[in-house]
């Protein structure tokens, strides 16, 4: 356990240094987020049903924030691996006796943590701008959120594995934003089959809490169970796919841009 803690520290530190050192990139990320948010607000006020403005705005805030958070962590991970394969540092990472999958796990957690901080800031900014105050019961949201991120980490592993063996992953990373949009914006009630898709159940529950003020006792056992089964399944599926990709990469010598 202790070695993993040092791995985590090293990766949080590196990610933090890069976010700070290349702050124009970080700022432009935040700025783009905000501009798009303003455009959406305007859209709701102009074309939306005036009766529904408040709920619509709340939906947008929650969906958009979660989408942004997932996109930032997952896309960042994919691009970083691509870049490291080109730069050659990927091979150095693979030479760590800690194991690449642990480094990836540390990186994913580091990303979730740092982008999480940015996202909380953006959430407050969005609520201030729209003057809409969501329910924010940390004790209810946090556990649901953490279980949801376990599934996200699984998806991160899948992406990382693919990025290692498929060098054309770039275009897929572009499409990823639309896939994630589908998964975060479509409510489960309109598409129940999405229950088996990653994160959808968790996002749905977070919406219930933040918009409708649900508390622990408002959810059914089924909700908790399906959330956990979904997240844990994706975590393991992700890991298995990652290990398969790692094996292929070692067999074909794909770790350096050949």
């Amino acid at each position, binding site marked *: 356990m*202790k*070695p*993993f803690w*040092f*791995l985590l*520290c*090293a*990766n949080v*530190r*590196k990610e933090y*240094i*890069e976010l700070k*050192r*290349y702050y124009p990139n970080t700022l432009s990320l935040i700025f783009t987020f905000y501009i798009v948010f303003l455009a959406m607000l305007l859209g709701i006020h102009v074309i939306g049903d005036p009766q529904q403005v408040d709920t619509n705005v709340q939906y947008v805030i929650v969906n958009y924030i979660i989408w942004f958070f997932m996109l930032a962590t997952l896309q960042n991970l994919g691009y970083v691996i691509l870049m490291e394969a080109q*730069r*050659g*540092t990927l*091979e*150095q*990472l*693979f*030479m*760590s*006796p*800690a*194991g690449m999958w*642990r*480094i990836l796990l540390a990186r994913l957690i580091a990303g979730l943590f740092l982008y999480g901080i940015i996202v909380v800031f953006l959430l407050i900014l969005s609520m201030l701008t729209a003057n809409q105050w969501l329910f924010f019961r940390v004790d209810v949201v946090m556990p649901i959120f953490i279980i949801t991120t376990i599934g996200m980490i699984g998806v991160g592993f899948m992406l990382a594995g693919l990025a290692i063996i498929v060098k054309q992953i770039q275009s897929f990373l572009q499409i990823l934003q639309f896939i994630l949009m589908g998964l975060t914006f479509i409510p489960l009630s309109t598409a129940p089959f999405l229950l088996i898709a990653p994160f959808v159940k968790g996002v749905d529950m977070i919406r219930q809490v933040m918009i409708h003020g649900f508390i622990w006792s408002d959810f059914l056992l089924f909700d908790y169970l399906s959330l956990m089964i979904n997240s844990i399944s994706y975590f393991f599926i992700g890991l298995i796919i990652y290990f398969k990709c790692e*094996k292929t990469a*070692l*067999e*074909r*010598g794909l*770790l*350096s841009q050949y």
Partner: protein
Amino acid sequence: MERDVVIEVKNLKKTYKKRKGNEIIYALNGVNFNVYRGEILGLLGPNGAGKTTTIKSICGLIKPNGGAVLINEIDSNKSRLKALNYLSAVLEGNRNLYWRLTVRENLEYFVGNRGVNRKNEQGRVEELLLYFNLKEKENELVSSLSRGMQQKLAIAVALSANTEIILLDEPTLGLDVETGYEVRELLKRLVKEHGKTIIISTHDMPVVQDLCERTVIINNGKVIADEQVDNLIAFFDTRAYIFTLGEELTSQQRISLTENYPMCNINFNEIEVIIEKENDLYKIMDILKSEKTVIEKIDRSIVDIEQIFLKLTKEGSKE
């Protein structure tokens, strides 16, 4: 004296599929050699011989199709992570570092990534910065360093892992003469002071002559020589001759000489040749005599590792 075997490369085979088409490249065709504790081994071979593939197989970055690599008796394929505890490497090119991080941050990040507490390693990091003359540059981004400085840092990073074995794939490639010299001196000092087991793959013959005790020469994915450098030189020393002639060779003589001795150097009235057997000396004399060429003198020539290397690899590709 029995020496400790640290790395055992056993009948290593590796094929690659070409990206386009179904052509199969045989990169390694059964490579065998041992590496002993505390020695510096030079891995030589022409471009595409399989040096990098061998090094990466040892590092567990490539899964061989056949054979095995044992690191302190641990199979580097079956127990990859366990074997990696003993290894660190500087791989080909200037691609071992994070260009967006500073010198110190690179050292610390790589230490952390091995699951080690970076705070406990401050002393080591400090020592390495001083040793490699990088202390003044510790807060500069790697992207702003010269190629030579980057290479020194890459070696420092490999050392920061404090492993028993270090692999260096062409550590002086792409450096200018002066920086190449500097890196070579540094490696020399390192070897003397740190007593590590080091494998260097290189095309840089002065590196071999200066640093390596033993050399393994690979050609077409096979080991064609595995010898102490001194023995190799001594062996060839007795077999290199220079013929000084009274006149130029006829074209007929040139042809039969180059056909039989592809490694001979013909210069106006001078022939430099490395022979295999005593008998060859008489054969060459026969070729010369056939046209009644005057032989003014025959001298022993001094060979260096480069000539030996060229001779061995040329012979290999003739087959």
